[in-house]
């Protein structure tokens, strides 16, 4: 008893350190993280008839809509890749990013009640959202794989190559970006809620600056927007994914390295800001 007490001695002081990320503490709360993830996944389809099937239906519907609007009406080329595969690839990655970012950027507002009552490492909340999103993405990736196999069986040429092994790296970049941006925005929205409205709009625009519905090759002609698309850290993630799995697209180590560095920096900045805000946000929100 006394040993545990000593071990858990706790000091509460006015100001914390600049970068204070107590991994030990987060590790002690790993069960809570697990509960959070479980809760988010289970409650997602509570009181629905189709249940978990909704995880699959969502990307399929979006793909059909995209095939109709962008492929059919706007006639945006897909670099010779079958349309369902092309859109599904983009949607799987993009949905993860946009959904998780919207949710994490609301961390403080949605958890206001519970943050105001009990203490646990606040980072658990956005972290769980990011991981839940990841699990959802893996489920949706399954849809992509099934469609993929279908096309292979049909004899369509899909250029799967060694770069597909970069998939975990892509996931890491995506996850860091969402978590980083998410906690930065959530920290800022504790004081100014205006940002909350801006963010949904910004995410919509962001999609058009990312090669989700078009291949990068289409834009290479336009000098006006190319710099923006290349500065976008998501561009190389999308392109690398399509390059590895579908054999089309642009791949460069430089672009991928840039995205990687970008995501790590955003994550670090996010953690610093988040730590500063989490200590006192209850007084401001």
């Amino acid at each position, binding site marked *: 008893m006394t040993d545990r*007490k000593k071990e858990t001695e706790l000091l*509460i002081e006015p100001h914390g350190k600049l970068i204070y990320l107590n991994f030990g503490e987060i590790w002690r709360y790993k069960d809570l993280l697990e509960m959070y993830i479980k809760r988010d996944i289970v409650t997602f389809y509570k009181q629905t008839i189709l249940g978990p099937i909704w995880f699959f239906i969502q990307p399929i519907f979006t793909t059909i809509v995209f095939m109709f609007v962008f492929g059919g009406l706007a006639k945006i080329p897909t670099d010779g890749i079958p349309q369902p595969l092309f859109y599904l690839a983009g949607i799987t990655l993009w949905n993860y990013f946009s959904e998780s970012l919207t949710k994490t950027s609301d961390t403080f507002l949605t958890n206001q009640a519970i943050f105001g009552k009990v203490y646990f490492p606040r980072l658990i909340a956005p972290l769980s959202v990011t991981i839940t999103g990841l699990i959802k993405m893996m489920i949706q990736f399954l849809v992509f794989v099934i469609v993929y196999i279908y096309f292979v069986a049909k004899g369509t040429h899909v250029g799967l190559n060694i770069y597909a092994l970069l998939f975990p790296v892509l996931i890491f970049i995506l996850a860091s970006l969402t978590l980083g941006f998410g906690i930065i925005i959530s920290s800022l929205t504790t004081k100014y809620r205006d940002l909350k409205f801006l963010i949904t709009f910004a995410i919509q625009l962001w999609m058009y600056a990312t090669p989700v519905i078009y291949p990068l090759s289409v834009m290479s002609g336009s000098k006006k927007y190319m710099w923006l698309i290349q500065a976008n850290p998501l561009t190389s993630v999308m392109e690398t994914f399509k390059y590895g799995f579908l054999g089309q697209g642009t791949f460069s180590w430089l672009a991928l390295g840039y995205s990687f560095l970008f995501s790590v920096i955003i994550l670090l900045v996010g953690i610093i800001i988040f730590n500063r805000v989490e200590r006192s946000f209850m007084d401001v929100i």
Partner: protein
Amino acid sequence: MSDFAIKFENISKQYQLGSIGTGTLSHDLKRWWTIHVRGQEDPYLKIGQVNEQSDKSSDGIVWALRDINLEVKDGEVLGIIGKNGAGKSTLLKILSRVTTPTTGRITARGRIASLLEVGTGFHPEMTGRENIFMNGSIMGMTKAEIRSKFDEIVDFAGVAKYIDTPVKRYSSGMTVRLGFAIAAHLEPEILVVDEVLAVGDAEFQKKAIGKMQDVSQSGGRTVLFVSHNMNAVRTLCSKGIVLKSGQVIFEGNTDDAINQYINVNTLQTAEIINSISYLNHEIKIDSVTINGASSNYLHLDGDSTSLQVVIEGSVATEKVLTLEVEIFDVNNNRVAFYGPGMVNGILKRYSPGRFVVNEKILIPRNLAGGIYSLDINLTHPYVAYYMKASRCVQMEYIGYQFASGHNDYKLRGYYILDSAE
């Protein structure tokens, strides 16, 4: 090494009124515009904070807590009492790390579980079972710990039948019971409880208080308990502190703390006559005195056994006036009643003009010492009230001094019984 569980050192908490975020950028701009350009008052200043906190300085700074120094020993049950806005909840919030102190530091040994408002971590869509695990892990317990206590929790909360039903279908009482059961069973070394007992029914309240006693006595764990229910504080706590305007004004045994709080809580010395809450238009009161004093605070030591109540005034028409004195304890329970007209049938008639009501009331020698408050009324029994003064006097009754000199029988009961032999 001393055996403290929690040590507060110079803890202060400062709030800046109004000038922190008002919510949106446009509000901040608007406020800046009104104050600095148009020279008017802050339109977003929090209302209600200004009048209560007397130590608010002109620049809108409020000290919710000021220099709290406190040591809570291992296994102690500390009652924290004080008026609304005295800083009780702020203190608990700092302890449970919901917000940070402005200055000072707290050292706490052991895990802290707080019951600031039970059931806050509940997700309405999840079942009772899922929520027990969720809530337990929010409080920092591992899954294995929760699993070993699971049956006990369900049993204590009395929700066995509904354990696989979503919590949104629970009644509010069930939710609170479940929330309390989780926190009380998960064996944190330090349990922080803020006014939770207000919700459950009487039976559950009793159960909860019993559980908290168990926790502190057998488990040797520390409990911090905030409540306005003095009975609960008295039964549960081994020590009490009184907070007023963010400062500890009393620290000591529970009974003294409660008495101190009740003194602080009432008007400081004022005249009884000012507490008259109702007066018939045909009657005028010039003075009200008890034992010769007109102040609303009355101290009766062990030798005093009577109250001499004198009311002087005038009536416009002939009236039957009977003095009525009621004695209440600190929990507003009526302890004794004096009303000669009602009981004995002697009604005194007063003709128009001046009147003097002068009666001597005997206080039983065996009435237990403590703080009481009095109602003084003039009435024509069963017909009308002419004057009412509710809780107009605070009476501190020392009570009969026993040879042992012990004084800790205060309010164990209303009367001290003698042996028949």
